[in-house]
């Protein structure tokens, strides 16, 4: 299984929604780690612990953005597995994936 630890593989300070908001934005994380694995149909385990906090806009864009970009929510929930000591983070991300609607 593919494994990505946000704090060490991406940034301890993930921030921002779009690429124009900074190099460690949700869009950058999605492009670099999530979409390639989803495209290949591979499971990816995302370890969320160890960062200095998350902005919700980062989480929404990184994970909810997958659905807006055409990936089926059930497929995303199946292939993107979350690991964190914080139940609130997992709840939040699953909510974004379920609530996002595909861009037409």
């Amino acid at each position, binding site marked *: 299984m593919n494994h990505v630890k946000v704090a060490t593989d991406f940034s301890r*300070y993930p*921030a*921002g*929604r*779009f690429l*124009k*908001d*900074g190099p460690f934005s949700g869009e950058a994380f999605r492009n670099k780690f999530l979409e390639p694995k989803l495209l290949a149909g591979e499971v990816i385990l995302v370890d969320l612990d160890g*960062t*200095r*906090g*998350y*902005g*919700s*806009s980062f989480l*929404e864009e990184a994970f909810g953005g997958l659905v807006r970009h055409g990936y089926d929510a059930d497929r995303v929930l199946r292939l993107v597995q979350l690991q964190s*000591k*914080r*139940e*609130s*983070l997992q*709840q*939040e991300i699953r*909510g974004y994936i379920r609530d996002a609607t595909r861009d037409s």
Partner: protein
Amino acid sequence: MATAAAVIALLLVIVGWFATHVFSEMRERRKEMRGQIDKLIVNLHKIEADTRSFHSAPAFDSVKANDLRVSLDRFERTASRMAVFNQDELARHYRLIRQGATLQNFEPSTFTPQPLDAALLMDFSDISWDIEDAMETQYAEQYPDSFPYFRFRKRTIRK
């Protein structure tokens, strides 16, 4: 007969000592927990003020944004270590408070100064009140104001 009386007296002493020990221990725990919750609530009020300050500033401030993100993380981390709280119940509140402060208007590309009566800030104030109430309710459930002033219950502490 004298031996039986001595045994009863000894048992009473042991029971009395045990009861005193338990109540004293619980009183200390209650005071300690009250102090920790008070500090947490002070932090919560500071987060509320910082959120208001960030969103109503004339321009996006990346330092304030980072401080706010770290404060929210620290708040959740601290509260998660407190045995008095049922973390399954509070998880929803942690999520709401993070979303309230950082889901909208939190990027340089989309930032717009918010008036102090903006829905975003009013909603955040409500969220802040709700988590404070939830914490106080859980504290009151574990340490009620009436005898015996505490309840035993199993708690899961997340580190």
